[in-house]
């Protein structure tokens, strides 16, 4: 039987399939261990009102987004028009987590680019960022009415990601 000569070819084909699938994956998209878990608690001062503080428990009963941003973050500039647009349409309350930024730089940046946030909180040493497993800005968490993290967008929210993933998820969570 000459069929056995096809074995190496079959192994090669399987290998090709594995490698081809590997090529389509983005190694920067690390699955977050937080999906389906409660949003970690924190208390941070607000960016614009340093005396006032905020913790995620204050958003109980609402579906909301926690968006990690910084004035030094280049991709945040790409994402920002999308957030501004979402805010204009009143799609979902967005809380900003200003990550490792100087207060003056951050407020100036919002003046320049628009402020789509209900408010931002100020995480100067990145401690809350670590608690949320943030490894690059921007990142966005979708948090449901019970305070459970349902989705994490790594990198900017593109119009496509908004349309295909985030809007349907928000509709489901608000239902």
């Amino acid at each position, binding site marked *: 039987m000459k069929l056995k000569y096809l074995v190496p070819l079959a192994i090669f084909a399987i290998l090709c399939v594995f490698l081809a699938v590997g090529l389509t994956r983005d*190694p*920067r998209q*690390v*699955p977050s*261990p937080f999906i389906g878990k409660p949003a970690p608690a924190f208390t941070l001062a607000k960016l614009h009102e340093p005396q006032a503080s905020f913790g995620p428990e204050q958003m109980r009963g609402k579906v909301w987004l926690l968006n990690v941003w910084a004035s030094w973050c280049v991709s945040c500039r790409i994402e920002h028009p999308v957030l501004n647009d979402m805010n204009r349409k009143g799609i979902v309350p967005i809380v900003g987590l200003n990550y*490792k930024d100087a207060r003056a730089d951050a407020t100036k940046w919002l003046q320049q680019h628009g402020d789509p946030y209900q408010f931002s909180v100020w995480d100067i*040493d990145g401690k809350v960022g*670590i608690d949320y497993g943030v490894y*690059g800005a921007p990142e966005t968490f979708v948090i449901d009415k019970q305070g459970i993290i349902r989705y994490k967008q790594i990198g900017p929210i593109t119009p496509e990601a908004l349309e295909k993933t985030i809007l349907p998820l928000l509709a489901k969570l608000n239902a």
Partner: protein
Amino acid sequence: MKRLALALALAASLAAWGQSTEIANPDPKVEARLKTIAHELRCLVCQNQTIADSDAPLAVDLRKQVRVMIGDGKSDEEIRGYMVDRYGDFVLYKPPFNAVTAVLWVGPGLLIVGGFAALALMIRRRREAAVAAPPPDAARQREIEALLAADPDGKSRR
């Protein structure tokens, strides 16, 4: 000479610029433990570096965090658990054995064992085939020997 000095000064300033504001713990024991732990943790910003090797701001923050936790008397296991809770198994350079990583851990061993098994099978089959070949009968044997004796170097065949 002056130019060389200038170049050296510039090179030194470049190195300083690349360095972050990281304060090592004065206790060498803490730093030694930090080193062993940090060498097992992946920096998620530059993914093929450990947080011991990387100078990314996140790696600096995580080293700082590990120092704090060592200071709080946390065990290595607790520190690794803290990182896995936040960044997932991917943060470990030595991933744990579970359903997702089983192929990763067992696969190479299976391939080696399978390869050697196939090789052994092939060798045995060839040996059996060699044994199974019928010996030349007596008349043919004599003929061969006669031919060889007549022309020991095989010259007439060239």
